[in-house]
């Protein structure tokens, strides 16, 4: 039973990965491939923040540089395969994430030592500086980074593994499935090793570390390298997926994305960043098809999580799971239902308000059309609906808060 418990999440994940292509359409596969990249990226970020207590604003530097390493290797494979000789002629594109890993880890190894002296604000500021430095540096070496346009390549070169030509996104899916599974497994295993445990210890109390025999800096540095490597691996996956790497991939914006995904999903729970990566990626890629306010909505979700659910979406999942094991679901279900209704009403009010404002300023918005709402911002009716929804949501919220006080 316990053995089953331990393996169940992995078996289920594997089953999902195997069945996913059968139940999704062609265009969804492209989104899923991006999700795979972002899962690895967000988890690698959480090795620093959630596991090691290091708040980084420059994590995309490792993702991007790993990505560049992989794309240059891909070009090398192309050239060598054409010539038919050399080391790269025998290197499959399938293994390029390993090149990304090496790139990311190497950069972390070279720059990381001075960073890891302190966690906290000093670390945050230094990584912010690194991010900016690398982003600016890319413009100074166009031969390496390809200037504004980036570096192009072609993934259909070199030896073919597992019969994957990598021509279509559906082919790339199996490549992604393999690497996301391997990377998540590796990062999970890392948390179970002595070094993984020590990284939690240094997060909780760096001052005590010295007195159990460890300079905190050594532990941080090793975690930093591992995390940089995993970010580079995600970058390698991205290089194969897009066949182009631009300086945007190592920008501050990309670093922010890592923080966003990890925090929305939950920093304190291993699978949190996975949940966050899925949600944020889906929101980013789907919402932008329907509304101009997509970025705003992602930002609002981030704000809501930080304010009202500091342990993230995974924190909520854990809450339900514990209630399930404690057989308290029946007792808590009404409150959850009321809470969900309250949040839904508040969200609807907010979405409606945002769309109305967009209508006022832009004249039209696609989301309203898609939902079949014939909104007229000049009539008082939709505004009344906003207020009604707000009132309902707030009322339900007060109600659940009251019942929570009553029971505790």
């Amino acid at each position, binding site marked *: 039973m316990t053995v089953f418990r331990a393996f169940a999440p992995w078996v289920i994940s594997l089953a999902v990965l195997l069945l996913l292509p059968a139940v999704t359409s062609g265009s969804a596969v492209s989104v899923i491939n991006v999700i795979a990249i972002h899962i690895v990226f967000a988890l690698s970020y959480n090795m620093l923040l959630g596991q090691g207590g290091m708040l980084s604003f420059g994590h995309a530097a490792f993702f991007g540089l790993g990505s560049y390493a992989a794309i240059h290797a891909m070009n090398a494979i192309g050239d060598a395969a054409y010539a038919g000789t050399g080391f790269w002629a025998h290197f499959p594109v399938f293994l390029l994430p390993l090149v990304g890993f090496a790139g990311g880890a190497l950069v972390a190894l070279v720059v990381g030592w001075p960073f890891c002296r302190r966690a906290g604000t000093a670390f945050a500021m230094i990584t912010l500086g690194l991010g900016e430095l690398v982003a600016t540096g890319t413009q100074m070496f166009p031969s390496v980074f390809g200037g504004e346009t980036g570096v192009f390549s072609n993934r259909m070169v070199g030896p073919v593994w597992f019969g994957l030509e990598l021509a279509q996104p559906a082919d790339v899916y199996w490549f992604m499935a393999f690497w996301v599974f391997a990377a998540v497994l590796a990062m999970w295993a890392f948390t179970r*090793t002595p*070094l*993984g*445990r020590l990284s*939690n*210890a240094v997060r*909780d109390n760096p001052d005590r570390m*010295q*007195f159990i025999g460890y300079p905190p800096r050594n*532990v941080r540095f090793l975690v930093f390298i591992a995390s940089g490597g995993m970010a580079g691996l995600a970058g390698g996956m991205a290089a194969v997926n897009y066949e182009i790497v631009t300086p945007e991939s190592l920008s501050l914006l990309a670093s922010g994305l890592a923080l966003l995904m990890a925090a929305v999903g939950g920093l304190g729970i291993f699978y949190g960043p996975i949940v966050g990566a899925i949600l944020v990626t889906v929101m980013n890629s789907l919402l932008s098809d329907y509304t101009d306010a997509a970025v705003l909505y992602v930002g609002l979700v981030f704000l809501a999580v930080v304010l009202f659910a500091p342990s993230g979406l995974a924190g909520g999942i854990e809450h339900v799971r514990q209630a399930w094991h404690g057989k308290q679901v029946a007792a808590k279900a009404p409150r959850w239902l009321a809470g969900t209704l309250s949040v839904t009403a508040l969200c609807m009010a907010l979405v409606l308000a945002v769309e109305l404002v967009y209508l006022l300023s832009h004249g039209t918005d696609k989301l309203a059309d898609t939902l079949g709402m014939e909104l007229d911002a000049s009539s008082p009716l939709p505004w009344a609906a906003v207020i009604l929804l707000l009132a309902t949501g707030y009322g339900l919220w007060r109600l659940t808060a009251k019942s929570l006080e009553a029971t505790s």
Partner: protein
Amino acid sequence: MSAALSIRDLTKNFGPAEVIRGVNLDVRQGEIHAVIGPNGAGKSTFFNLISGALRASGGDILLHGERINGLAPQDIQQRGLARSFQVSNVFDNLSVFENLRCACFKNSGAGYVFWRAATGMGGANRRAEEVLDMIGLRALRDAPAGALPYASQRALEIGMTIAGDAGVVLLDEPTAGMSNTETGQAIELIRQVGADRTLMIVEHDMGVVFELADRISVLVYGEIVATGTPEAIRNDPRVKEAYLGEEAA
């Protein structure tokens, strides 16, 4: 018998303020040595100097005859001197067992291992279980350390200090803030810890000191005014004047 720990002319200034003013002290192998003194006497600073948390302004600290002053705390710990803290200083989000195991890793050869599971580190696991029983927290094995009751956290604090199997252990006010029953249990634990180690404790509770200590040193305004058996210290006029007299006043 040789001294496990020798302090020679130790001084420490913070700017113009002299906090430790030429301390000389020998802690014998295997004894329980208590350091007492009024508030502000410099006891905590004294511990911080020995354990490497602070750097001495002058003088020498010898552990088994080897100089350890100027070394980093982790190097001093590796040479067999461990310390506990006055305020509980544990890893809040880790379980009790994990706290102990982390404290065992370095000395059981697990170092910075990232290629094997922590559960596979036989030495560290065995030692952590052993200490867990010794400090009586078996029932709270998997509770997060930050959520422990105060007295249990103090016991864990001592457990983490001895987990690395240091020969010389400094305990900083191990019974501070405890109830009578809890203090009684703590005394038992300290006695057990001291059975095969050299122990130096700073303590405010005179009952604890006179019950446990083989010898006592009295630190007043950065100087040792007397060292001796509990009996001798009790009757020492200088101690009465400097310490007990002040308490009575």
